[in-house]
């Protein structure tokens, strides 16, 4: 039995780096066939790797080339040739569907504890979120979450995740110890986690289009959060309004600072946090 962002689940395979728990499971994960059929919720554009999301009577179906997942209320069916790799994937993108069904919305970001506060980094893939979080954990700061940054309904503090960061090969080359390469070409690095993250005091949005570091407020801050939800796919009732509420609440309560992608280091983060505090 494991727990991931508050959801307890039973897995048919051992999962490394996911907290084992002894409570009753809320979700059963099993392997079986999954048909890629139903009402199309989302289909990736031709320029991106093939992906489709469907709504079916059994649940939400997510279909990649290498795996299909059918996510029901209390069951997730995994259909893939490589079971281990598919379970590894399940606790990432498909988990946002599991969380959305439980009222939890997920931003695409990483977060660490810095000076008694949680600091979050948002941005598109490759913008430097994980690298920045990893560099901070190397200097002793605890990790809150990497890649998925979920928020329970009504809360503006992210839920704590697993002690795992997934590093790009060029970043992993700088690490003293990293784990195996995952199916997506990233390398696992472990970090100490904060079980109960302190309040979020800064959201740093790493943006390819930004030329300078600047604080944004009001509608621009809401937009900066809104464009960084993990998935564009809406799978649960009320999700549109929950996302609107979360983006507005974060923009109203947490300083939002936009910075150029891959150009911010730990010292910059400390300085920005001091300036907005």
């Amino acid at each position, binding site marked *: 039995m494991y727990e991931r962002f508050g959801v307890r689940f039973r897995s048919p395979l051992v999962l490394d780096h996911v907290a084992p728990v002894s409570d009753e499971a809320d979700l059963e994960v099993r392997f079986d066939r999954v048909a890629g059929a139903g009402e199309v919720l989302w289909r990736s554009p031709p320029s991106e790797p093939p992906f489709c999301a469907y709504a079916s009577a059994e649940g939400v179906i997510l279909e990649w080339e290498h795996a299909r997942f059918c996510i029901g209320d209390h069951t997730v069916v995994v259909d893939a040739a490589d079971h281990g790799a598919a379970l590894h994937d399940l606790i990432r993108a498909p988990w946002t569907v599991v969380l959305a069904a439980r009222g939890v919305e997920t931003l695409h970001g990483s977060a660490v504890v810095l000076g008694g506060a949680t600091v979050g980094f948002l941005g598109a893939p490759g913008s430097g979120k994980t690298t920045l979080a990893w560099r901070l954990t190397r200097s002793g700061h605890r990790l809150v979450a990497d890649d998925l940054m979920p928020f329970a309904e009504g809360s503006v503090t992210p839920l704590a995740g697993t002690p795992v960061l997934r590093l790009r090969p060029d970043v992993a080359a700088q690490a003293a110890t990293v784990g195996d390469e995952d199916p997506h070409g990233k390398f696992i690095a472990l970090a100490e986690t904060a079980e109960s993250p302190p309040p979020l005091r800064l959201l740093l949005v790493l943006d390819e289009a930004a030329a300078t570091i600047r604080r944004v407020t009001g*509608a621009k801050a*809401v937009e900066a959060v809104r464009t960084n939800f993990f998935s564009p796919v809406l799978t649960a009732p009320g999700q549109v309004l929950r996302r609107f509420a979360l983006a507005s609440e974060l*923009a109203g309560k947490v300083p939002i600072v936009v910075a150029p992608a891959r150009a911010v280091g730990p010292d910059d983060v400390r300085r920005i946090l001091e300036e907005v505090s």
Partner: protein
Amino acid sequence: MSYRVPDGVHAREVDGEAVVLDSLGDRYFGLNRSGLVVWRRLSAGGTPSEAERDLVNLYAIPVDQARADVADLLRRLLDAGLLAPAEEG
């Protein structure tokens, strides 16, 4: 003439500005501080003339400018489906 907020349109105030979610849930519209003043008045059933007075009183701008600003914002809100004439519903 007065206006109403159509079903499915939601607004939030953030840092003295407003963000309005359209009824399809896929677009957010930002309104600056003066836009928020106009939005507050019109979304509560007030008239454009009342919104113009609000702007004149708050920002000490000429009436003609306030009238033009309110007319411009109202047109954009109506075009985006974020407000509708009250008579329609």
